[in-house]
């Protein structure tokens, strides 16, 4: 729809489509007989900027000159002209001021956005001891900037797609052109373009549309608020999706081994990082299997337990009225409830929570003979190992499988546990994320993948990127020359 010739009509149109919302501000200026009008939404626009840029630029100018080269006379770097009414409101809502001039078929949009974001702050959900401390924010431009600041390569591309019929959210797909597999980038962009949804408020919305398989609980994308992690993933040949208004970006593909990493691994000594990665693997198996093993051994296969431990366990269990499985299940669930309560409770009431959780549920329950101390130990070990992972989606997946394992052990003992383990491993290996098998580089085996992601070899020994992530596998292009000069 084309613009009206009349300034009044245009302003009226805007007011009408938004039913005269209270935050629409408009002003008409009569400058030597030529009507100039501008409109902005005061909720997202900085009044100061409007006064600074607009009023100064318009008022008191030689009008003839002004109309001829109107764009050149406004002191603002972000300026464009429009000739239709369709997109006007999107600009207004983004914090632009729109200038109409009578008898002119174009209008001018000037950026006068008010800063509605908090600044770059420390990463709260993925704290590390050593390494960069900044995190993504809700501001799209700042988020892109945090990446651009780290990778100053001209091959770093941001492709922008606008998603959401009503929210019109910017979604940027970042990749390094000569590193990432372009085929998968195109696929991802196509998939994002196909998304037909009312609104996108967080990167979590996008994620659901990108999964090929929805029937698995394991996450296929890493979500992080750390720009350094996003950048190291980009350098590895992964794709980063940045969504407007959320500090959480998506890194894809997220393979099984990636969840055993911490951004800190990159800044630690290789040996320590390798040890920590293997430790996290161990924690994964502990947290998924220990309660189930406990149930299986206590109720079906006590012959596996060593003599003295068995007697100690039997004595601890004595007088507990509930079956072992119920005991464990109840306590696993109680812990989850505690965690949920803790996550969403304000810090003021945190200490009260601790007292109730630790003292009443732990100590008093044992003294009352409702649970055995060993059950508390089991649930505690399980929960602590679970907290080693910083990715919430992985924790959720682990939690889901833990319950399945407990049920398998409850009905079939150690046989059930082992069969469940078979199902679990089969399930894991059958997952494919973005055309890459989930268990790569463990299965199918990729030696470079293992060196890069399962372990961490010294950085000056890592010549290649794994093939499954990138066609341009050479990481150190001029390695030989570097060696010679040394």
């Amino acid at each position, binding site marked *: 729809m084309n613009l009206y010739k009349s300034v009044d009509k245009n302003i009226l149109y805007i007011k009408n489509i938004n039913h005269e919302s209270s935050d629409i501000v408009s002003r008409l200026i009569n400058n030597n007989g030529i009507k100039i009008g501008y409109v902005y939404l005061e909720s997202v626009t900085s009044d100061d900027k409007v006064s600074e840029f607009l009023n100064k630029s318009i008022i008191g100018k030689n009008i003839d000159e002004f109309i001829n080269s109107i764009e050149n006379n406004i002191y603002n770097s972000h300026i464009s002209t429009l000739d239709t009414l369709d997109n006007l409101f999107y600009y207004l809502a983004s914090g632009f001021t729109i200038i109409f001039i009578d008898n002119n078929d174009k209008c001018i949009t000037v950026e006068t956005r008010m800063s509605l974001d908090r600044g770059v702050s420390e990463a709260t959900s993925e704290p590390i001891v050593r390494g960069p401390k900044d995190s993504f924010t809700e501001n799209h431009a700042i988020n892109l900037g945090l990446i651009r600041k780290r990778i100053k390569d001209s091959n770093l591309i941001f492709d922008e797609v606008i998603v959401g019929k009503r929210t019109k959210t910017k979604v940027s797909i970042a990749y390094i052109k000569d590193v990432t597999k372009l085929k998968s980038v195109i696929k991802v962009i196509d998939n994002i373009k196909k998304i037909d949804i009312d609104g996108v408020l967080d990167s979590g919305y996008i994620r659901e549309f990108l999964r090929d398989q929805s*029937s698995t609980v394991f996450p296929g994308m890493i979500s992080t608020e750390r720009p350094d992690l996003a950048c190291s993933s980009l350098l590895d040949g992964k794709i980063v999706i940045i969504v407007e208004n959320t500090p959480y970006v998506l890194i894809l593909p997220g393979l099984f081994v990636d969840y055993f990493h911490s951004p800190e691994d990159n800044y630690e000594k290789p040996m320590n990082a390798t040890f920590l990665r293997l430790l996290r693997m161990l924690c994964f198996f502990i947290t998924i299997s220990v309660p189930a093993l406990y149930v299986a051994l*206590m*109720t*079906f296969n*006590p*012959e596996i337990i060593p*003599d*003295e431990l*068995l*007697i*100690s*366990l*039997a*004595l*601890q*269990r*004595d*007088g*507990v009225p509930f*079956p*072992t499985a119920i005991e464990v299940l109840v306590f696993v669930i109680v812990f989850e409830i505690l965690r949920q309560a803790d996550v969403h409770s304000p810090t003021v009431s945190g200490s009260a929570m601790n007292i109730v959780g630790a003292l009443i549920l732990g100590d008093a329950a*044992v*003294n009352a*003979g409702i649970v*055995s*101390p060993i059950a508390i130990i089991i649930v505690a070990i399980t929960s602590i190992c679970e907290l080693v992972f910083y990715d919430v989606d992985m924790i959720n997946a682990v939690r889901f499988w833990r319950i399945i394992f407990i*049920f*398998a052990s*409850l*009905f*079939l*003992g150690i046989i*059930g546990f082992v069969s469940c383990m078979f199902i679990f491993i089969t399930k894991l290996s059958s997952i494919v994320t973005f055309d890459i098998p989930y268990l790569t580089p463990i299965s199918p085996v990729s030696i470079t993948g293992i060196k890069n992601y399962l372990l961490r070899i010294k950085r000056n020994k890592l010549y290649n990127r794994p093939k499954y992530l990138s066609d341009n596998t050479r990481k150190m292009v001029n390695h030989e020359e570097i060696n010679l000069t040394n």
Partner: protein
Amino acid sequence: MKRLILLISLIIICSGCFNYNELNNYAIATGMAIDINNNDYEVSVLISNSPKSSNQANGKNYTTVVYSGKGKTIYEAIKQIGLISPKELYIGHLSVLIISEDVAKAGINSSIEFLLQEPRSKKNFYVAISKDSKAKDVLSVTSPLTDFPSQNLATNLKTTTSLQGSVNATDFNTTLYKLVNIGIDLSLNGFSIVGDTKNGVKNSNIETNVPKAYIKLSPLAIFKDDKLVSWTTKNESRGINIINDKIKEIYLRLDCDGGDIVVDTEDLETKKTIDKNGNITLKTSGKASISEISCDIDLTKQSNINKLEKKIENKIIELENSAIKLSKKYSTDIFGIGLMYYQDYPDKYSKIKDYDKFYNNIKFKTKVDIKLNTLGSIKQTLERIENEEDY
């Protein structure tokens, strides 16, 4: 997904928790004793998980209880225990089986048959014979150093095997192997009670500094087929263990002018070879070190060391010969000579008609080679060092 749900529900419905039992519903037996009493077996089990008080937070509060049952067969006797015990008897964690001397003399086959049949019993518990006392009492005497009596017996067997030389911890599997195989006979350790049995079974026994009664390991008992024929002396036991290559360390006391020398052997190894007539060559080799000297001997001289080595070798030959003599006396093949002969010369073995006679005619050749490689921490005896300083 539908198939998965079907599978899971099938598992839940059809399994019916086939083997489900809560741990606290078991009476965990860690020790078992078999006595014979007026032609009836008396089986006693040591149940180790009886809570002393309702305060379970203190896991260390073990007390044990011994239940006995009588019956014509072992199984009946154990079923009798079921009448006394409020919990299901669980013998999967048996750590020691004590058989009384009387039972052993009559033959142990019928009494261990049950444990072989029972699917839930593990087969690596130790087997021992009670000497001069009821097996039940051996099982019941409390020990201040371990939490429950059966643990005391098992650890005692395990640790002394490597330290003493006269003891050889034999587990159920080995026992069965020796019973079932032809050409090899059984030798088992014995336990005896020293002190006041009546007070020894009380809990107060562990509260005093000087226990009223304690369990002592005796030398081996040797068997002919499944019947106990004789107890051995300490030296004979050591000889048996050397020939069977069961011990690496053994201490030997040797005479020297006006005093004693005690040496410890290391890495003692015995190889048996058999020729076609059944004659045996024993080759023992090893190292030795001096532990204690109370006589006047100059250890810096090579000739003295050579003499000492010779003495050690003779001592070991003496031990071996005493064991051979004993085994020939009862014609019991505790060294497994028959099995060796059968494995090396199966044709000749099948032609033997009177095995006992054959066994008694076997000639044993013993060769010992000991190297005295360490001389203890000091090279001279304390006496000599003092004298040297006087000069």
